[in-house]
């Protein structure tokens, strides 16, 4: 099965992962990589971020999203990397890579996976700032983004 899901505490290099993903094929025309990065905003600087997760459920949920995307959009390969534990602004949190003969499928597949990942993968973000720590709230617009895919 050309689906890979990796959960890891270690930092990863988005460029290296892209190279590895692309090196495995010569026959497909379109690859999309989405990279999510720990943000820090000037008006509320984040010192660090800690991601808690539920390992077994995270693995099965992400594999499920990848498989659904592969079937729905006709993807030839999907790789998802998601970190947990402590990380710092500028570091990658998540990377989703899709490959397809056609660019629309590669784009749609990556968006589909990210939209479900945001709301249905068991990770919880806790931000450390100068004012203390806080659990990041779920966002209504993420629910709406996922909902779009359920319409016929």
């Amino acid at each position, binding site marked *: 099965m050309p689906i890979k899901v990796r959960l890891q505490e270690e930092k990863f290099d988005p460029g290296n992962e892209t190279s590895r993903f692309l090196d495995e094929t010569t026959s497909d025309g379109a690859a999309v990589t989405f990279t999510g990065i720990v943000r820090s905003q000037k008006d509320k600087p984040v010192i660090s971020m800690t991601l*808690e997760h539920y390992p077994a459920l995270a693995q099965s949920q992400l594999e499920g999203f990848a498989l659904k995307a592969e079937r729905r959009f006709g993807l030839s390969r999907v790789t998802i990397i998601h970190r947990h534990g402590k990380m710092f602004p500028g570091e990658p949190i998540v990377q989703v890579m899709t490959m397809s003969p056609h660019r629309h499928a590669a784009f749609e597949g990556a968006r589909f996976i*990210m939209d479900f990942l945001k709301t*249905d993968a068991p990770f919880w973000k806790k931000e450390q700032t100068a004012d203390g720590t806080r659990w990041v*709230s779920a966002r209504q617009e993420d629910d709406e983004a996922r909902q779009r895919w359920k319409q016929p």
Partner: protein
Amino acid sequence: MKILYFAWLRERLNRGEEEVSPPPEVRTVNDLMDWMASNDEGFALAFARRSLIRGALDENIVDHDTPLEGAGTVAFFPPMTGG
């Protein structure tokens, strides 16, 4: 039956997991929350707003009205914020 707690639920309850033995009339995920809350004030407070709680049975996310049907592990957690 093992129960797992994550994120702020885990912090408020001050435990990440516990073993429980609910009586047979506890049939659904909702029943389990009611039963736990009736025995534990801390649980009742943390689980006061049920719409903020999501549940999973043996690594499958489920609705609150899903029957437990002998699940070995139940997990409770807040809305997810990964990615």
